[in-house]
């Protein structure tokens, strides 16, 4: 809804372009949440997957002469395929080791894309041709705003579908106790890999769309740990167990980032504020805003409410006897 009316309300192209950026974050954070939210594997490397998506789109357009949007889809498929071996290596390890591997992924890709300049353009960057040449900039923003909006809806719908499904239940079981889940018959590795690939595909779509919108790719910015950590911050802030959590987080953090830039533009204090924000979230709302607020509301409404119904051994025995009698009669 808001997505539909925002472009007509935006007072100028700058606000509209900020809107596109925020939506980009929202798609990224939602895509991240396929892995982070369901399986509990925290990846700081999703920035690199977006970067891969962007570069793949750009290279397919420039080197293979594909039409822009065909290239976008092809790039997502390509990245999804690439996510299989990446996931194969990364998902073998759990917890902290996985985080390290995800950081390593970013750094490796940065090295490769920087050094392999004959293909990627190296640190000179890659210029992605405009999908709508000749379109004026404000119009261009509007089109991409709707494209991102559509992608976000698609990602949200997929997340919702998984969340309520048995497949999603299996993933959540993995998050809680992987060995136990496996012993209950969940093919944990296949599940993790599948959801990682889904996540990578959506991330790559967002990255590819960004490449089309933005036009310039530079390895330093495409493969940055910072991007990945903003994504994590957003998802965490909103709440990873909630459908709209990452979107909310993206809106809050995305706007905050723009605001910091305007406020503290000429000092590195934006890093400090981001750091403080992340710290506060981790310390005081590790479950995110949405769950924290719901919990608070619930507590205000009826204090000391406990989900455990209390029964004594005598009650239980009584109950049991009644059951038995019921069964007999």
């Amino acid at each position: 809804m808001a997505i539909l009316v925002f472009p007509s309300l935006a007072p100028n192209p700058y606000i509209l372009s900020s809107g596109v950026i925020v939506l980009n974050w929202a798609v990224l954070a939602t895509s991240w949440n396929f892995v982070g939210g369901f399986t509990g594997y925290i990846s700081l490397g999703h920035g690199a997957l977006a970067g891969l998506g962007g570069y793949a789109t750009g290279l397919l357009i420039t080197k293979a002469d594909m039409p822009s949007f065909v290239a976008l889809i092809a790039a997502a498929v390509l990245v999804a395929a690439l996510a299989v071996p990446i996931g194969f290596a990364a998902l073998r390890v759990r917890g902290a080791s996985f985080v390290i591997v995800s950081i390593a992924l970013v750094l490796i890709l940065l090295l490769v894309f920087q050094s392999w300049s004959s293909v990627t353009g190296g640190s000179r960057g890659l210029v992605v041709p405009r999908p709508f040449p000749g379109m004026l900039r404000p119009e261009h923003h509007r089109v991409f705003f709707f494209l991102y909006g559509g992608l976000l809806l698609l990602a949200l719908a997929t997340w919702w579908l998984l969340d309520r499904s048995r497949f999603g239940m299996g993933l959540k079981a993995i998050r809680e106790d992987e060995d136990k889940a496996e012993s209950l018959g969940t093919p944990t590795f296949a599940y993790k890999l599948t959801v990682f690939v889904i996540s990578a595909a959506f991330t790559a779509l967002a990255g590819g769309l960004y490449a089309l919108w933005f036009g310039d790719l530079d390895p330093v910015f495409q493969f940055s740990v910072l991007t990945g950590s903003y994504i994590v911050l957003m998802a965490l802030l909103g709440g990873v167990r909630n459908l709209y959590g990452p979107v909310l987080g993206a809106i809050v953090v995305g706007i905050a980032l723009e605001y910091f830039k305007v406020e503290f533009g000429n000092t590195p204090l934006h890093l400090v504020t981001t750091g403080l924000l992340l710290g506060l979230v981790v310390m005081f709302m590790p479950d995110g805003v949405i769950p924290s607020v719901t919990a608070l509301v619930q507590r205000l409404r009826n204090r000391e409410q406990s989900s455990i119904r209390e029964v004594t051994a005598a009650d239980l025995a009584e109950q049991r006897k009644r059951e038995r009698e019921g069964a007999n009669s």
Partner: protein
Amino acid sequence: MLVFQSVVLGLLLGGLYALLAAGLTLYFGIMRVVMIAHSAFLILAAYLAWWTNDRLGIDPLLSMVVTVPLFFGAGVLLQRGLLSRLRPATLTMMSVLITFAIALIIEGLLGYAFTGTQRRIQLGYGTASFELFGARVAVVKLIAFGLAVVSLACLYVLMKRTQFGWALRATIQHPDAARLVGIDTERTAGFGFGLGLATAAVGGTALSLDTTIYPSLHWHWIGPLMAIIVVGGLGSVPGAAAAALVLGLAQSLLQIPMGATWAQTVFYVALFATLAVRPQGFFGGRLAQRF
């Protein structure tokens, strides 16, 4: 000739890597904390060394008199104030994020205080060197290497031979049980963290002797250091040292055919190879437990 020179350079570099990885080993392997901010503290220490030299004109090595206790204190505070408040169940994950936040804050403050300009300490003996079997050995690099060796040895003895080391490991593995045998877990964990940061102070000073520093430099160090502790076996100080030497040497030698950029990939190749073949690490790692 070039090969031998590279071997010498590689070993000296490896020594520095070993020292820097030692602190990480401490938090990660023993305390289950992924300390992303370690290299940020490293840069902070390097900046302090640079600053004392720049302002007061004294030898950067002397700055350790202040930075080591200062960092120790900061570590204790950090542990008590932040990390000890995280839920044990999500400690590892959340510690990544909280220390990441700290790294950002440090980087931002450094940029604020000293601007983004690259800095380098100008030492009278900065370009001095001597010859060793045909290779040149720079004095500053040797000093850094010496610092690394001494601190690593101290750390090893402390962890293995003293009661503090035992108490620290016990605290991390089962805090309640540790309290029940009479360990002051809060103080122990705080000291453990302080110790890790103290190694960052030493490492940062060593680093500042022969390299340029700038606020965002810490990103550059995170990858190789993380790779080293994984290859070395999480939690094993000797493992980290061995891995650091081997990888430092490999990087230095690979630079001859591959150039500086591609040579860096050796860390990541080693990281993935380790995870594929021996997830518990090649040199240490006693318990083949997956995290």
